[in-house]
């Protein structure tokens, strides 16, 4: 775990980004040198609709403190309809996590276009702050994964 008495809590954040919009948006944040904490690690997926709720639970199991899914804005999906499905699926998943009493703020969906480097960086900064305030994910992880 990245918690240390001397160090402040550094959350583990997994960001799924669609290849056509959000991943490019993240790249743009990079080429525009917009800072966000190194705790965010991005996984490239073809489309937000590729993200299975299983992956999100998997991240929590392994000790992630927050998971964010970024895709093209509704209506702009490279595959025309993918993010519409992702939107419904994630709405359902998040409401179930909330229902089970798991902090709903640990999960998030944000639409980031290829032009929105600034939005990407801002979203990440904001999300990290939120997760930092929540503290370590204790409710939805497998203790065996703790080193």
């Amino acid at each position: 775990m990245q918690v240390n008495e001397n160090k402040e809590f550094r959350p583990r954040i997994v960001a799924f980004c669609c290849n056509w919009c959000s991943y490019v948006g993240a790249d743009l944040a990079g080429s525009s040198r917009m800072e966000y904490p190194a705790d965010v690690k991005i996984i490239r997926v073809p489309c937000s609709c590729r993200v299975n709720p299983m992956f999100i639970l998997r991240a929590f199991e392994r000790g992630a403190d927050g998971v964010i899914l970024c895709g093209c804005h509704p209506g702009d999906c490279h595959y025309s309809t993918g993010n519409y499905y992702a939107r419904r699926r994630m709405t359902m998943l998040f409401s179930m996590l909330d229902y089970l009493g798991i902090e709903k703020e640990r999960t998030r969906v944000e639409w980031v276009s290829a032009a929105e480097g600034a939005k990407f960086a801002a979203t990440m900064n904001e999300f990290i702050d939120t997760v930092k305030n929540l503290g370590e994910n204790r409710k939805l992880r497998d203790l065996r994964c703790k080193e």
Partner: protein
Amino acid sequence: MQRIVDKINELFANGTVDRVLGWKVGEFSYDRTPYVFTKEGGLDGFAYDSFCANNLSKYLIAESRKEGKVLVLLKPCDTYSYNQLVAENRIKTENVYTVSIPCKGKVDVEKLKAMGMTGITDIVENGEELTVTTLYGDEKVNRCDVLCEKCLACQKTAKECDEAIEGEAYEKPHKDRFATVEELEAMSPEERFAFWRKELSKCIRCNACRNVCPACSYIKCVFDNDNSGIASKANTDEFQENMFHIIRAFHVAGRCTDCGECSRVCPQGIPLHLLNRKFIKEINELYGEYQAGDNTESRGPLTSFTKEDCEPSIVYEKGGK
């Protein structure tokens, strides 16, 4: 029941059907086992009463692939499961003859036992009253107090079948289907977490909920498939307890007809239907009223969308406290 038996005998006699998927009496006055009666074997041991709770539709996946025509008895709630299975191409309808039968709600023997009635040797039904004979004395209970959880909020009327056998008029209990879900939603996240931990930690992963579920009729479940990456046989950590039930609820979301079998068969009495109903409630509220199995054509809410759908962030606003 006599009308059902007469109808079956008539259909056996005129060659319409070869087999009947129904329930058979057991060792006690309350255990009923799904059974396939044949024309040759006759209806020996056939029963239809307050204890025939099993949803028979799932058996048709295998039965409809056999030669000859099988008659299936469907309670109103089961007709939805049947439709959903047909919609998903799981049943060869040409080999099935559907008969809808009336239902006044089924009695949950576990509830009797929880009321302290152990050693039950006989249960006699007299209208709305049950006389339970036990080794330790007789007791009388109101039928409506011991109905299966799934029957308490059941407002389902039978969907179209090849044949419908009507029953006497009967006023269904009308517990609000989502009342308990709403109670949970009204709790604080910590309370909800505690509630579900307590419930889900009872799970012994016997898979009864999954195997009885008509929507969980996949050839190999991801939890049984070593190549799926999430296979697991036991709840070796509390995460696994959550994971299994979240994924299961998600996989049946938009497909679950709310037949309630999962909760009924859970040996640990985990109210699993509350997970499914949460999804049903969310779907109804966010995407419009939807009843899986209402017909065999419509697309499920998670395989369709509208451009105006709400954003997942709605959960932050409307979710529980």
